[in-house]
């Protein structure tokens, strides 16, 4: 896991590189990473599994996190997910 703290957008964001991993690992690792965040903090998740384009929005919906952005270029997907309120 690559962890990178940035404050570009004034929001604490950590980065998680899941390139090369297939379902269920990107969602599994993203959920573990989100579990360590405070509500309102963000995770930047990078994947290459084409299923992630469906899986990551579904995960955010089920977990009640907010999918802030999705970028899909050249076989890589980058998601920014903002952690929702604690359940």
């Amino acid at each position, binding site marked *: 896991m690559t962890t990178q703290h940035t404050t570009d957008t004034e929001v604490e964001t950590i980065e998680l590189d899941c390139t*090369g*991993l*297939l*379902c*269920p*690992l990107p*969602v*599994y690792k*993203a*959920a*573990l990473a989100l579990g360590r965040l405070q509500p309102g903090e963000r995770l930047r998740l990078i994947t290459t599994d084409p299923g992630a384009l469906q899986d990551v929005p*579904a*995960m955010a919906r*089920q*977990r*009640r996190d907010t999918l802030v952005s999705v970028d899909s270029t050249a076989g890589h997907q980058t998601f920014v997910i903002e952690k929702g309120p604690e*359940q």
Partner: protein
Amino acid sequence: MTQTQTHDEATPLAEAPPRSKRIAIVASKGTLDGAYPPMILASTAVSLGWEAGIYFTFYGLDILHAERFEKLKVASLANPAGPIQLPNLLGAIPGATAAATKVMRKWMRDARMPSIPEFIDMTQDLGVRFFACATTMGVMGVEESDLIPGADIAGAAAFLDYAADADVSLFV
């Protein structure tokens, strides 16, 4: 039972926290390829914030068997979509099942997928509930000491009691 339960009036039902979603899975297959789907679904479900339970029954109980869960195999016979595609006559020859198993293990390793024992650890760490079918244990002579720690020995009623509150129930 003579006791009656009453709701605590200080905590009315309207303020009860929302219940987690739940998935209840029956794992009935004891092959390597049959063991992955319940593990993938359960690990995903808990990642989504759901509760997850797996009832391991019949050959599926091998997934919880401390000596067998590292040695699950892929059938080379009557498995036309398997890793090595052989006519049944050849799929029956000695070594064919071992070869099919070896190919699938390589596929999984090359794809960086966890092994079944690793999935067991991942799902147990995340609180997935494991039920070991008591009837299977009795019929097949499996003792509690043969199983990995952390499984609840239970029959169909206990699983159905769990599954009655599930939002998703699957037999795999």
